[in-house]
């Protein structure tokens, strides 16, 4: 419902920032962003407004969370993975 695209702040002038979206730069308004931002900060843009300053460590935290999820699944899944591996190998042979 709400198309959001992350970008990196290039410069700030009052409540306006120039944001680099890795390809194009565009002005983004800072009226409603949750925290003060400075050049180099990452933000989430929605309809030309920054709605969140993305703390860089939160990017890593998200990745760590996903690793956790997969680890939790795979630890008790080693047997199943072996079985699946064998099935895949057989299918590969069939196809080959």
């Amino acid at each position, binding site marked *: 419902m709400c*198309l959001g*695209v992350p970008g990196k702040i290039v410069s700030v002038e009052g409540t306006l920032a120039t944001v680099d*979206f890795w*390809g194009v730069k565009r002005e983004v308004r800072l009226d409603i962003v949750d925290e003060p931002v400075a050049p180099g900060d990452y933000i989430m843009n929605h309809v030309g407004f920054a709605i969140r300053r993305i703390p860089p460590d939160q990017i890593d935290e998200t990745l760590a969370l996903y690793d956790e999820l997969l680890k939790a699944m795979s630890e008790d899944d080693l047997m199943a993975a072996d079985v699946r591996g064998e099935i895949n190998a057989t299918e590969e042979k069939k196809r080959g």
Partner: protein
Amino acid sequence: MNAPQGLVNGKIALKHGAGGRAMRELIRDVILKGAAPASFDGVGPDAMDDGAALKVGDQWLVITTDSYVINPPFFPGGDIGRLAISGTVNDLAMMGATEPLALTCALIVEEGFARGDLERVRDSIHSACREARTAIATGDTKVMGNGELDGIVLNTAGVAFTRRVVTDRALKPGDRIVVTGTIGDHGLAVMAHRHELGFENQLRSDVAPLNGLVAAALGAAPEGVVAMKDPTRGGLASALHEMAEKSGVGVVLEEAKIPVRDEVRAASELLGIDPLHAANEGKAVIGVRPEALDAVLAALRAHPLGLSAEVIGTCVAERPGFVILDTGFGRRLVTEPEGELLPRIC
């Protein structure tokens, strides 16, 4: 399956000119109704190809015509003049006719249009002709009252001879799909400019005559190039749908292989637009027999307009008429855009 997209309340809508399914149905169901039988051998209007091909002796005379309306008439990377020449030269080239004998150019101008702007359009018409190694043989000029049309309308027609006609319907399972360069440049540039989206100067239209590039591909593998189309309105999505439908094959694309400029990708993400839906005015989609692929690709990449040419997909026997995109995560059907592309917020 697809219900016919009837005319809303018996009236023509903008989507009927947008290059997608609605337009093809309008042409088939309304415009071609009751036409006299073809008076010639070859590719006629019922083929709904880029142009017609008439057998003349042992050669084909290829002929095409197109009208150009674009708002705004000047945009980053080009203008309506360059567009009108490139579009017609490219339609000839897509039929395999890469040496246009001559073009015609008809001009309809709104009362009050600036003379200086008209001169700019004229200059880019002539420079695009030089690039395509052709010239205007005849033309026509009309002026209409203020408000009776939007600025300027151009119509161009072109004629060329070729020994071999390439249609948009000869794809077979196993054929490879090649694009001659990055996708979406023209559509995103014009859209950003029209809606004042704040990054217009970072995007440029790719409008260019392609006959030299196509000649290189055809020269490298005369029998190996089996189908061509320029993905203009409706973008790569519509061009491939049309080719797949007419050829009776399915097309499976690999998203990672489709060349898209960083700035076009970023703009299309911000605006919620699929680059596959955005128009191109300097690109061709080429169907190539697998054994000719290397030669065609090398020839394209050796040409300045084909540096980022890429193999993006393969034709399959399953699901004729469908275009399937392998995203690397899963697969989805590519849809055809309906009407003008609009920025979205959801």
